[in-house]
């Protein structure tokens, strides 16, 4: 599973970081980013939670090639 944060949609709510600090970082201005290439085994559920709690619908799955 691979995910990304759309920087144009992210408004810095930081729900992703609160739910899954293993997967996301948030900078001093609130901009979130994904810090892993691939979601490690066992953290898929946390990634799904982050996706489902983002008020801006800013987190997306990257389709596998």
């Amino acid at each position: 599973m691979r995910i990304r944060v759309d920087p144009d949609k992210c408004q810095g709510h930081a729900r992703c970081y609160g739910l899954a600090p293993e997967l996301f970082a948030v900078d001093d201005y609130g901009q979130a980013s994904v810090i892993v290439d691939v979601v490690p085994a066992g953290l898929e559920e946390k990634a799904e939670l982050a996706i489902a709690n983002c008020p801006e619908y800013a987190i997306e799955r990257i389709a596998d090639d």
Partner: protein
Amino acid sequence: MTRTTPVSNWATDFDVLDPHYIADPFGIWDDLRSSCPIAHTDRRGSNWLPTRYEDVTAIAHDIEHFSSLKVAVIPVGEDDVDDAGGPALEYGLPPISSDPPLHTWTRRLLLPWFSHRRVESYVALTRDLCQKLLGGFVDDGRADAAADYAQQIPVRVIAHILGVSSDMSDSFTGWVRDILEFGDDPERRTRGSEQLLNYFVSQLEFRRQSPGDDLLSELLHTEVDGAPVPDSIVLGMAALVLIAGVDTTWSAIGSSLWHLATHPDDRERLVVEPDLLPTALEEFLRAYAPVTMARVVTGDVEFGGCPMKEGDKVLMNFPAANRDPEAFDHADAVLLDRAHNRHVAFGSGIHRCAGSNLARMELQVALEEWLAYIPKFTLEAGKEITWAGGQVRGPRVLPVVFQ
């Protein structure tokens, strides 16, 4: 001096200061959502009140048609000139009462003060404060959970961040209440904003001479595009941090304690499962979102079938959006373990509450410490609870008893 006449038609003549609405708006929103999802009133100007999640978030993102130049839910005066801080503030209270480009750079100056990293450094101070407050009444067997506790916390943390004395907390609270809670009383609102601004004018002078490690000092000594930030903008930003950082979080803490005082199963569950608190507090924020902000219509536009005119206001009903069954399963139920919770208690779009990290931390610590000191409490029988509403909804008097 709340001037309200009874409402007979909520779709065409709503009143956010109606006492029934302030005490229990949820059923009114449900009725509107299924019959007339964007209500209108001509009370205090032409105002629209969306109640659906989809509409509220769409308007929040449409900054072209819906400006933030007037954000007060209760306008002052017929022509609303006194909005957002009074005539002394040429630019109001940026970034909240501004659109890009002013919004963009003023917000960037504030955000680092409320980043996760920075907020982490305020935890010890907040916890110590909560423990001192609780220690002051835990042996009394009763307390006003709003006035003795919730109201006392955010104002002191904000004073620390601004770099002003927490001895002034009671004055700060009074001024902010005059501006937000009693905003329909022009005399009280003017008095509150004048006192607040006068205080910050003197603090700016002091910090200009003796800069400290605080937000006011940094704003005074920052350059944007090679020029210092104009004093009226520094003043507006300082006033915003105080006004927006006090009533709001205090209301969220108070509403959460009200819920726990009236729902013993939920209270017991949080005592047994403290790890659930971060999830539960998002649910408290969803179900009891304190804040409604206004937008002003920039030009005639039809939205959701409503003919909105230039100068109309839209009251951004984030609290009702959070109760929309189209957006949330069992929207009316408070489910402490709600896993999917895309609530918009902190708004949506570019005006997302700049202090949301701070508010979450204060709410977490305040509830954690309360439950540690007072795991079992109920409302005090026969005592009245009072709620404030309008711009910010939350309990103002909340008498509880405990062993």
